[in-house]
C-alpha cells in the first residue's frame, strides 16, 4: 500500500508557499474583477511569512501545516486568513502523530479541513467560493479510493476535480462575500478563492504523490 512519510514531507508546504507567492499578481488580478483585488497580496504575505519561518527547519508535514495555519489564522486577517487558517490547522491536527499517511488518513485530513471551513463560513457549493473547488476535489478523492484506485491515482483524481471545480465558478453567480452584491454581473469570471484553493490542493496532492513510498 502506498503511503506518505509525514516526517520528511514538510517541503510540500514550502513548495505550496512558493507557488502562492508566484501567483500573487494573478490572484489579485482575478479578485479585482469582482472583488477588491487584494487576494493575491494577502495570500502571498501569509504564505511568505510561513515560508520564512519554515525555511531550513526540516519539519514534518503536520508541523509545517500547523505553522502555516496558525500564521494565516492569527496574522493575516481578512476572510481568507480565518478560512484557510482553520483549514490548515485542521489538516495538521488530523495528520499529527501519523507516521505513514495512507489514503484513508489523507481523506480524514481533507474532511476535517472542509468541516472547519464550513463551521465558520456559511457558503455552500454553487455560491462561487473556494468550496466549489474543495468539495468536488474531496469527493473525487474518496470516489477513486472507494473504486480501489491507488493513493497516487486518487490524488490525481483530486487535482483534476479541483481544477474542474475552479473552472466551474466562471459560470456561477456569487452568493456570498463582497462579489455577491454584484448579482448576475459576477458571471463570467473565476472566483479568486476557488482559484487559490485549486493551487493549494494541487501543490499539496502532487507533492504527496511525488513522495509516495
Amino acid at each position: 500500500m502506498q503511503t506518505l512519510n509525514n516526517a520528511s514531507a514538510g517541503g510540500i508546504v514550502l513548495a505550496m508557499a512558493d507557488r502562492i507567492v508566484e501567483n500573487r499578481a494573478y490572484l489579485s488580478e482575478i479578485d479585482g474583477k469582482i472583488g477588491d483585488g487584494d487576494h493575491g497580496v494577502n495570500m502571498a504575505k501569509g504564505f511568505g511569512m510561513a515560508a520564512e519561518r519554515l525555511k531550513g527547519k526540516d519539519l514534518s508535514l503536520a508541523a509545517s501545516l500547523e505553522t502555516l495555519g496558525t500564521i494565516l489564522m492569527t496574522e493575516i486577517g481578512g476572510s481568507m486568513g480565518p478560512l484557510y487558517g482553520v483549514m490548515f490547522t485542521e489538516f495538521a491536527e488530523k495528520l499529527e502523530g501519523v507516521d505513514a499517511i495512507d489514503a484513508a488518513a489523507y481523506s480524514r485530513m481533507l474532511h476535517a479541513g472542509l468541516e472547519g471551513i464550513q463551521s465558520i463560513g456559511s457558503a455552500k457549493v454553487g455560491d462561487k467560493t473556494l468550496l466549489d473547488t474543495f468539495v468536488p476535489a474531496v469527493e473525487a478523492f474518496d470516489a477513486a479510493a472507494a473504486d480501489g484506485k491507488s493513493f497516487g491515482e486518487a490524488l490525481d483524481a483530486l487535482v483534476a476535480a479541483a481544477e474542474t471545480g475552479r473552472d466551474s465558478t466562471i459560470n456561477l453567480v456569487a452568493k456570498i462575500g463582497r462579489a455577491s452584491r454584484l448579482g448576475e454581473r459576477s458571471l463570467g469570471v473565476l472566483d479568486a478563492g476557488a482559484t487559490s484553493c485549486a493551487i493549494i490542493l494541487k501543490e499539496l496532492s502532487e507533492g504527496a504523490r511525488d513522495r509516495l513510498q
Partner: protein
Amino acid sequence: MASKTSPTGKSTAGKTGQTDVADAMPLRYGDDPYVWACWLYYEEGRTQHDIAEIMGISRATVNSYLADARSRGIVNISLEPSRLSSLAIAQELKRHFGLLDCLVVPSDDGSRTLIDRLGTAGGQAVAKLLKSGDTLAVAWGRTVLAIAGNTAVTGLQDVTIVQATGGTRASFAYTPELCASAMAEATGAKLINIAAPAIVSNAEVQSAFLREPLIEEQFAALGRANKALFGVSSLRPNSTIHTSGFFESVSIQHYLAKNAVGVVAGRFIDPQGRAVAGPLDERTIGISLDMLQKIGMRIAVAGGFDKVPAILAALRGGFINVLITDAATGRGILNADGVTEVDQRLAQRTRGEGPLPLPSNVRTHIKKFLNNPDQVVDEMLEGVLKAHADYITPIKGSNRALVARKGPRAGKVGLVIGGGTGHEPCFLGYVGKGLADAVAVGNIFSSPPPGPILECARAASGGQGVLFVYGNYAGDVMNFEMAAEMAQEEDIPVRTVLTTDDIASSPVEDRDGRRGVAGNFFMFKIAGAACDRGLALSECEAVTRKANDRTFTIGVALEPCSLPQTRRHNFEIGPDDIEIGMGIHGERGVVRDRMMSADQITDRIIDRIFGEMNAQPGDRVAVLVNSFGATPLMELYILFRRVEQRLSAKNITIAANWIGHYCTSLDMVGASISILHLDQELSDLLLYPCDSAALRIN
C-alpha cells in the same frame, strides 16, 4: 500663436503642421522611420525630444517607434554574458530569500581584488540607499572599510553614523572606530562612537559600562538606527575573526564547538541563523542580534566562497534584507539552499524573446505617492502616530492596535472599532475621548486578525465590558468573533453591533445582511458618547443598535479606485457610466446607470432613503455627505445643497451635518449620503462632546 522653432537648430524636417514623415526623411534610412528614429536615439545619442523635433513628429510617436523597433527586431539590446548572469543570480537571491534588494557583482575579471570590487558595489549601494535623516549603524571589517573608501555621498542632511560595536585594542586597519568614522566622512554625516571596548573582561564590567550615561546615550542612538551596514565573517581558519585578534581564540573554539558558522556584527550564529550562546555574550558591548533584526534596512556586503555557509546562515536568520555579493558566492548560496534552477532560467532567458513592449502612450498605472507598495499601511501608520500622538498610541508597541490616550477608564464600557485600511480617516480617526477607546488596524480593505483586536479589547476594558462596533463583512465578522471569544475567556464581556447602513446592498427584508459603510461615523459617535456617559454595556449596545437601525446610506461612484499594490483600476466604469450603491471597498455597485446631473443623482439617493426612513414633518436628522477619496469638497457641497432642499421641502430639520472625507475608499471618485433619523436620545448623544483626530465636538 507663433509656432516654436527647433531648439536643436539641426532640424532637417519642415516644421509646419503635420509634415509627412517620408517626405523629409534622408535617403539613407530608406522609407523606414523606425530605422531613422533608432539611428538618432542609439547611434547619435539624441533625446526623444530632439528626435521628435528632427523628424517633425510627436514625442509619443518617437517613443512608440523605439518600442516597436525592439519588438520588430530592428534593434537588439544585448547584455554582456557575465553581467546577465549576475543579474539573474541577484534576481533569484532576492526572490528566494525575500530580500528588499540585491546587488551581485560579476565574478572575477582578474584585474581587481574581491574586496575592492565589493567595496565599489557597496559604495554605490550606500549612495542609493542612504537618505536624509537616516541613522546608519556601521559594523567593522575589511569589507566595510573598503565600502567607506569607495563611498562619496553629498547633498544629504541630518544623517548620523553610529558605530555598531565597541572598540578594540587589536592593531588592524579596519577597527570599528575607523570604519564608522570613515563612513561618516564619506557621507558628510554626524558620527557617534561607542566609547567602550567591544569585549570587556567580565560581565560586571559590561553592565557597569552599559550603565554609564555616556554609553547609555550612545546605545540609545544605536537603537534609533533605521539602517545597518555590516559584513559577514566566516569561522574558517585564516578568516578575519581568527587573524584580527578581535576575539580571543579560546572563546572562538567554544563557539565553533557549538556549531557556529559565522559572525554578524560581532555575534555568533549557527547554520540556521540562530544565536549561539557562549562566554563572550556577557562580555560584549555592541549591537545585539535582536537590535539588528529590528532595524528596517539591514545591508550586508560579503563575498568569497568560504563565506557561503556564514552568509546563508545570516540570510536564514533574517539578519539581511539587502545583500551585496559576487556572482560565484551568490550562486554558491543558492545551491547550498537547494536552488539549482538559476542556470537553467538563465539559458532560457537568453533564448526567449522577452515581452512585447506596450505602446508608450498607453497609461498602465495610476500615479501615487509611494515608497514601497508593500509597506503602505505601515508607513501610513508611522505618519498617523506622529501626527496624532496626542490622541492615539500603540498598544504594546504594535501599530496595528491603537488605544486612545484619554479613552479607557475604570468603570466605563470600552468601545473597540476597526477594520481594513484605505478608508481613512476611518477608523483610527475616531479614537479619542467620547469616541472609540481602541482601534484594530488591518491591511488595505482587509480585516485585522484576531490578535490586535484582542489587544484592543484588553486595553479598552474598564471592568464594565467592551462593545465591538464594525461593518458587516464576512472577514471582519470572523476575526472579530474570534477575538470576542478570546476576550470572553479572559472574563471581558463583549457585545457586538454590526453596522448595516448601506441600504443599496440588500433589500429591506434582509436588513441584517447589509454592509456597513460611511454611516459608521454616526454609530461610532453614538456608541462613544453612550460609553463615555457611563451607560451599562447592554444600554450602550441597545442605543448603538438603534442608531444603526435609523441610519441610511447610499454611495455613488463615478470612477473606480486603485490599490497601491496594483496601481491599476480594480474595475472599470464606462466613460458615461456611474455606479449606484457603491460600497467602500471598491466593489462594484449594484446598478450601473448613465451619468446624470448632481441633483438627479441626489434625488435617486434621497428617494430611496425616504422610501425606508419614514420620517414625519417636523422630525430631525443628521446628514453626512462623504467623499470616497477623490471627489472634492466643491462637489460635496453641491450634493448637500440638494439634500437640504429635499429635506426642507418635507419640513425635516437638519440638526447637524458633516461634509468631507469621513469614510473613504482610497482614490475612488464618488460620494455617499448618510442620514441619521434622530430622536431625543440620539440627538443628545450625537452632540455630546468628543475629541479625536477626525472629529471634535465641544
